[in-house]
Every structure is written in C-alpha cells, then in structure tokens.
C-alpha cells in the first residue's frame, strides 16, 4: 500500500500550483468581491486541459487518473474555491457522465467541446421543491415526435451563468405507475432555455450559480443521455464521482486555511512572542493539520479505488463528508488564529470561511452522506 504520490502526480501538482499562484491568486479576491468569473481565465485553463481531466485523449481530454484529477482540483481550490468548484463540477458531473453513458455520436458532439473547455458544463438537478429529495423533481420531459419537450425550473446550477452544455435531470411523461427519470444534454443556445440572474451567495461568489428555466424547450432524442428511465442511475453514478471532486475541493480550502494561518502565527507578535510560540495556538494548528491529513487520505483513497474500477460509494461519501467538515473547521480555526485582522477583507481567511460552508451542503449534504455511509455499512455481509 503505497501512499506517496508518484513522480507524475508530483509534476502535476506542482504545475497546477504554479498556474494557480501566478494566474489565479491575484484574481481570486476580485472575483469574490464582484461575483464575476473571468472568461480569459477559463480560456487559459482550457488550453492546459483542465476541463478534460479524466477524459481520454481521443476525446480531447488529458487522460489523467482519478487521483491526479483530484490533485488538480485541490490545487485550484487552494487558491480560489470558486475556480476549483467550476472545474470540479464541469469534470465530474457534466463531462464524465457523457463519457460514461454517452454513445459515439454524443461523445463527439457533446463531450469533446466540453473536454476542450470550449463549452462549460453543468448538471441541473436541484429544484425549489427538490434538494436532498432528488426524486421530488417536477421538471418534465414529454416525448414529442423525435424528441422531448422540457418544462421546469432548475435552481442553484453551478457554472450556470457561463455554461454551454447542461445536463438536465427530468421526469418522464406520460407518467407511469413508477416514476421514471431521464437525463438530457441541453445546449445553452436552445430555444426555451432561459438563464436567471446569478445568485447573491455567501461564498464561492466567483462561480456564476443561477437558475435555469425550461419552457417548452425542445431537445432531439439524440440529446438524451442513456436510456429512458436511466436518469436516476446516471445521476447517482455522477454524484459518486462528484463527491471525490468536492472532497478535493474542500481539501484545497482547508489546506489554504492552514497555510495562511501558519504563516500568520509565525509573523504576528503579541506579548513579545510570535503566536506560534503559544501552546494554545500550536494546538489549534495541530488539530487543523491532522484533520487535513486524514481528509487527504480519505479523498485520495476514494479516488484510487474509483480509478481501479472498485466500488467506492462508501469511500467517496466518507471523503466528501470528512473533508467538507474539515474545511469548515480549518477556515473557522484559521480565522480565529488571525484574530481581528482575519475578520477584515485584507486577509483571505474570511473568504475561505465563506467558501467552505457550502461544501457541507451541495452534492449531498453531510446528513445524506451519513445515510449513504450507514447504508453501505449495513449492507456489508457479516457486519452489524
């Protein structure tokens, strides 16, 4: 069991870190303040294959393994949670499902532009009455001739404001005894798709999260991903991969919190000594570091298992759960270490604090993750 990164992963981590520190770091605060996502940055990231992390080369991606992909997300998130979120969601719940469940035509027409970063992807699942209870969605897909008419409201769509390709989770109509769901790939230009105003969020403000409204939006059958009725299966499969991305994202935010707090503790003097000389502060830093290491091991183990094709529902849920709670803990503790200065925008820690919280909520709340983990435990034979 080798827990050390490979030489390749070391190079990947370092390259992304350099890009993030040189190109994203200076934009991060402004993105947050103005709630804007810079197009030019997306273009640069696209040219470096950040939008096709695990997609094979023949479809325009980088062909990375899952662990390396998670490292990319971690390094981007360390500098900007909003950018890490954009890349993570695009890769794991938009591009990957099309690769996994799409046919040859769909891979060519829908996947390749996404992998090349020409079109940014979203996964439209949540609705006003359907959050954790995904099955309660009301968006319908009515079979009409050679296609479907979509009607409904999707909210909190990550990347929505800049997306070109949207995966939409809808209820099949006409209704049958048991509810059936399907996933449709809807290009943003389609008539009947309207994007609402970008949400005014507490954190991740650089990510243009917005509602997508479908009003008699027609999509041809070839835009349906997988079979009719396979929607739930596709959604759950992509969420499983998505959890690893969010875990990596939370890890990045946590690591950033630790980095800046350690630096602050070394430089800030009170009572004639640096903060890091006080046992109380040492304890806080140690707690942060331990949890971050543990999160890292959980997230990367899940990634490794996914890459090996092993079942990883429980592990990815554990990684997402623990890493997101660690991010919140680390950001809060870090802000405490920064004291009064941490409460001002002169230091980035308050942004990490605001960004971290949503990691415990989206792509399955912590409560849902606990249910997933428990179910998985209970289902294992021979274990109580």
């Amino acid at each position: 069991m080798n827990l050390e990164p490979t030489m390749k992963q070391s190079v990947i981590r370092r390259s992304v870190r350099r890009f993030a520190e040189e190109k994203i770091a200076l934009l991060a605060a402004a993105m947050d303040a103005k709630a804007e996502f810079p197009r030019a940055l997306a273009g640069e990231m696209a040219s470096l294959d950040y939008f096709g992390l695990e997609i094979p080369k023949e479809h325009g991606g980088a062909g990375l393994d899952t662990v390396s992909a998670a490292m990319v997300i971690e390094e981007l998130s360390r500098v900007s949670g909003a950018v890490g979120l954009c890349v993570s969601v695009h890769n794991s719940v938009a591009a990957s499902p099309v690769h996994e469940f799409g046919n040859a035509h769909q891979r060519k027409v829908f996947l390749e532009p996404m992998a090349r970063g020409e079109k940014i992807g979203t996964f439209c699942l949540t609705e006003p009455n359907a959050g954790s209870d995904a099955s309660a969605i009301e968006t319908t897909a009515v079979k009409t001739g050679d296609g479907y008419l979509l009607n409904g409201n999707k909210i909190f769509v990550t990347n929505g404001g800049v997306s070109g390709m949207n995966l939409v989770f809808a209820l099949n109509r006409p209704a049958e005894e048991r509810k059936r769901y399907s996933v449709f790939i809807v290009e943003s230009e389609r008539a009947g798709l309207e994007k609402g105003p970008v949400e005014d969020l507490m954190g991740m403000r650089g990510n243009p999260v917005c509602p997508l409204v479908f009003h008699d939006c027609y999509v041809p059958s070839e835009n349906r991903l997988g079979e009719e009725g396979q929607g739930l299966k596709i959604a759950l499969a992509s969420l499983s991969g998505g959890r690893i991305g969010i875990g990596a994202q939370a890890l990045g935010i946590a690591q950033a919190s630790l980095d800046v707090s350690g630096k602050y503790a070394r430089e800030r003097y009170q009572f004639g000594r640096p903060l890091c000389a006080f046992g109380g502060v040492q304890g806080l830093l140690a707690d942060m570091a331990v949890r971050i290491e543990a999160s890292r091991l959980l997230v990367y183990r899940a990634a490794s298992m996914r890459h090996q094709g092993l079942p990883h529902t429980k592990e990815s849920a554990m990684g997402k759960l623990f890493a997101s709670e660690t991010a919140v803990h680390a950001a809060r503790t870090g802000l405490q270490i920064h004291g009064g200065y941490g409460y001002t925008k002169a230091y980035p820690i308050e942004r990490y604090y605001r960004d971290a919280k949503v990691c415990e909520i989206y792509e399955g709340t912590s409560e849902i993750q606990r249910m997933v983990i428990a179910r998985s435990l209970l289902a294992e034979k021979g274990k109580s």
Partner: protein
Amino acid sequence: MKKTREHESTRGIWVFGDYRNYFQNRVTLQLIAKAKELAEKLATEVTVLVLGDQVHQFAMEYAAHGADVVMAVEHPALKTYQVETYARVVARLVEQWKPHVFLAGATAFGREFFPRLAKRLRTGLSADCVSLEVDPEHGWLIQTTPSFGGELLADVITPDHRPQMATVHPGMFKERVHDKRAVSRIVYPEVQVEADERVQLVRSKPEQAHKGNLEDAPVVVVGGRGLGSRENFRLLFELAECLGGEVGATRPAVMAGWAKEDRLLGQTGKNVKPKLLITVGTSGAVQYTTGIQGAETIIAVNRDPNAPIFQIADLGLVGEGRSILSLLLEKLRRRL
C-alpha cells in the same frame, strides 16, 4: 584529471585588470588593494595583468594603486574584451609564469571569462566571493562564496590545483589611495596572440539610463502585491523620478501587469545593489529578497508590522503603501 600540481613552484598573486569603464576599473583597484594585503601574508608580490591595444595609461594607474608588477600585453586583437581570445592568451601566460593565486572582478565579463580560463587550466574557481583570506601554512586562498542567493556562505579552498582562482563581488574591498610615487615594474611578456573569429561583436552601445537600467540605478523603488492596483503602482514611477532612480517589481506585480518583466527583481529576475532601495507592499518572500540583499540601505513600507521584509530592512514604515507614497511625493514636491 591532471595530477596534483607542485605548488611550491607557483608564486605571486595575479589580478586581472579590467579597465573598460569606470565601474569595472574600480573593481580592479579594489582587488589590487586586497591582493596586496594577501600577498604580504604570503610573502609574495601582486601582478596586475592588462590586455588591450594601448594599455600604458592603465598600467600606470594600477602601479599607482599598489601593483608591484604590471604585466601588459598589447595587440590589436585584444582591443575588445573577447572571452575565447582572452582565455587563450591568458592561459599561455599562466602556464608560463605559474601564479599562485589569480583574481578577477565578478563583472559580467569576469564571470564569463574566468570559468572558461579555469577549465582551460584545469583548476578550481569560486564565484562572486564576498571575502578572501589566506592560510599561510598551507598557502591556501580561502574563498568565501555565497549560494542560494546569499542565504548560505561557503568557505572554499583549492588545495591541489594552481592557480587558485576566484571572481570577487564588486564593492567588497576598499581601494588604495592613488600614489604617484609608487614604484612598480612593467613587464611586456612575449606571448602568442590570435583572435577567435567565431564570435563577432556586431554592435555595442551603452545601456541608456532612461531605458530603466535597474542594475546601475543608485536608487531603486520596488512595488509588490500589497500596492493593490496599477494606479497605486504608478506612484512608484513618480517617486523614482523624484529621487533619480528606477522602478523594480516583484513577481506578483509583474504577473498583474503593473510592470514589465524586465523590472522583475529576485531569484528569477535581476539582482540590484543600489545605494538606496525602497520596497513598498512587498511581504519579503525569499524569492524576491535575494535580488535586493545587496542594497546599501533598505527602507520598507508595509501595512503588516510582522511582514518578513522588515527583518532585512534598515528602516521600516508600518502603513498603507498608497497613502505613504502619496504623502511622501507631496512633501518632496514642495521642496523642489
């Protein structure tokens, strides 16, 4: 690898005479002074080697500044300082005369020429030394050379090879006062000189002061991420103009587009050693400070009283870069 030399047969401390312009010449004079001090401990003489087309005036000057011997080689092919041409000639002289120690200033030319020469002579060389001493018992030259941008110093010796060579950082030693009555021998050795035609100097012009020659500016004002905006960064240009200096930048400022790459200071940029350096809104990352450590006086402005930059500053001001700069400019302009 050549066998150990018989170093009992080497003697004399040689100094390479670089007279090209004022700055390089000063370095030569500083080296002569230090060489005299070392020579006394080794009971030997200082020879200054001068190559060129017409070198008599320089020979006289070096004599007046302490050289015991001036060895002059005059030849049209030596008019321009050319690495390969000089390396061949000087190697022949060294093999003929066998000096014990050979020093040169760590000018750009020196740092290009001396390693080539040392390799030709198959001897050791240390770069950009900040200090020189001798161990008379062993006849060693103890060369103190910086590494990691000056974070570490190494005391280096060349125990078994001769001459012991070193390039020396400008400004480390004090030159002797010009003494008209100083007596020295001027020698014109017989040596073969041929030009190496493979490198042709097509054009050479002095660097223009207005082109932002950072490395020669007596005052450098530097801005970093803490200035926050291009508009604030521009204040530095105004300050530089007021003080007769140049503007430098840290990597974050260059990446933000507030300054061009040629103003970058630090590990991957330029090293400057001005009389005064004012650094504003820079936290003091090592990748940056290695580029400015050589400044005579460093004044730092940062709103964080715990910024590491204050560890290397002679004077620190805690405050916001923009307001301090604006206030400073206002007061300076009132005086002019």
